[in-house]
């Protein structure tokens, strides 16, 4: 392998190899079985909304930046977006054609975000849609970001809570007047939608305090970057832990296999915040920034070491805001 291979093209070329044909034996077996199987009747209304419509933020563990040496030669490095695509390809029903693009040179190995102010909300395509940009102060090496998710993280081991030893900070901003649905029970979220949405930091924090299962702390006053708000900490119960299971299996008894703290429902899409695993802790700082709501979410797991948690808090508290 040479050092100038297009990583996406290599993966596509690898996946495009092969030409499968389903054997008649399988079709015959299906036919024989459906002849003896009744279709399930559908009774009652169609279930809506579907989670598929939801722009749900499900952040995994935070990350340690890999020093890509030989791996970078094969799969390349893409600057600030470590491994994640910056844009979404056009949907197509057909398998993509054999790649034709010329190989592109790889960039220098990614070594993490530089020290100093970093615009967490710098990328287009973030899920929140708010007007406020949030800058945090990167004080130590090891941080990286997922720009599309307005997320910076450190010490990632690629695992979900409660195994991960990493953590991260989310910075979402929402336009003035946004209505937050803080579900009364994050596990039964689809059926415990509050009658009245919350719109201010006080209302949102109070709703979290009343939320079942998350053992929310009492909201306290907080000022970040010169803007006031409320801080509240949520903890996902460890009782959901199933060793070796996937996140969806652990939350299998919950609506749509997801444990969802809150949602903002639009006309045809919604943003919701879901948990990544049992024991996850979310230290929320809910701020009123000139009428917009900014939620800083320092998230970590029971296995995250105290020094990392201190780093997360310091990073969240370093936030400054820029208005349009």
């Amino acid at each position, binding site marked *: *392998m040479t050092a100038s291979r297009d990583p996406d*093209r*290599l*993966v*596509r*070329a*690898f*996946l*495009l*190899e*092969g*030409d*499968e*044909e*389903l*054997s008649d034996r399988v*079709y015959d*077996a*299906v*036919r024989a*079985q*459906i002849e003896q*199987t009744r*279709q*399930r009747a559908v009774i009652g209304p*169609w279930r809506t909304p579907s*989670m*598929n419509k939801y*722009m*749900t933020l*499900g952040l*995994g*563990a935070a990350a340690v930046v*890999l020093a890509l*040496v*030989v*791996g*970078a*030669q*094969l*799969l390349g490095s893409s600057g600030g977006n*470590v*491994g*994640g*695509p910056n844009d*979404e*390809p*056009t*949907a*197509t*029903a057909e*398998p*993509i054609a054999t790649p034709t693009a010329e190989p592109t040179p790889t960039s220098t190995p990614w070594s993490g975000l530089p020290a100093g102010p970093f615009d967490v909300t710098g990328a287009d395509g973030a*899920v929140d849609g708010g007007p406020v940009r949030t800058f945090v102060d990167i004080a130590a090496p090891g941080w990286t970001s*997922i720009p599309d*998710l307005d997320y910076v993280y450190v010490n990632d081991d690629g695992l979900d809570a409660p195994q991960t030893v990493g953590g991260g900070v989310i910075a979402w901003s929402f336009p003035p007047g946004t209505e937050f649905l803080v579900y009364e029970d994050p596990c039964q979220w689809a059926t415990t939608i509050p009658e009245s949405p919350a719109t201010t930091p006080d209302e949102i924090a109070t709703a979290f305090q009343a939320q079942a299962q998350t053992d929310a702390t009492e909201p306290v006053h907080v000022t970040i970057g010169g803007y006031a708000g409320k801080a509240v900490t949520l903890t996902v119960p460890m009782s959901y832990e199933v060793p070796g299971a*996937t*996140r969806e299996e652990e939350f299998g008894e919950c609506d749509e*296999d997801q444990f969802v703290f809150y949602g903002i429902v639009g006309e045809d899409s919604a943003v919701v915040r*879901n948990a990544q695993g049992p024991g996850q802790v979310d230290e929320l700082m809910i701020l009123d920034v000139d009428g917009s709501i900014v939620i800083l979410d320092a998230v970590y797991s029971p296995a995250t070491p105290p020094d990392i948690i201190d780093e997360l808090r310091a990073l969240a508290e370093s936030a400054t805001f820029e208005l349009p």
Partner: protein
Amino acid sequence: MQDELVRQAQRGDAEAFDSLARMVGDRCLAIAVRILRDVDLAEDAVQAALITAWTELRALRDTSRFEPWLHRILTNACYAEARRRKRWYEGPRILPVAGAYGPDEYLTVDDRDLLERAFRRLTVQQRAILVFHHYLGLSISEVAARTGLPVGTAKSRLHYATRALRASVDADARTSPPSQERMA
């Protein structure tokens, strides 16, 4: 035409469903093989998915979304097959590759070996994300729909799957001697 077959099948027409299955079967197998890395398991997953699709077909409201809907069922069937394999068979398996892979000028034998090993080390969920995104060329929101994940979760999983693939290839490349082809 597919829509009409779906509607007929929803009314209990097994013949129509059989035609429908034959329209989509090869692609389902292609997806399942890439997720499971095993043709036999993939065939089992496709068979299970098609039977589930028949049973649940009346719950499909938008008949034009039959294939995405089927792919979500197929993804779950792949996960179930992977779990079953874990239970019954922990050793290495040999992929039936003879005749299945054509030459690709861009991939060397070394690339293919490294990627195959790296892909197998990923979780089945990570493989599914990569297959839908890179093989079918779907947007993240479509990937989310077909894997039953929230969009944000699909985004972060793609990110971590790609990173895990890199790390695995990196580790292998450090320890594997180059093949004759590579040296030539």
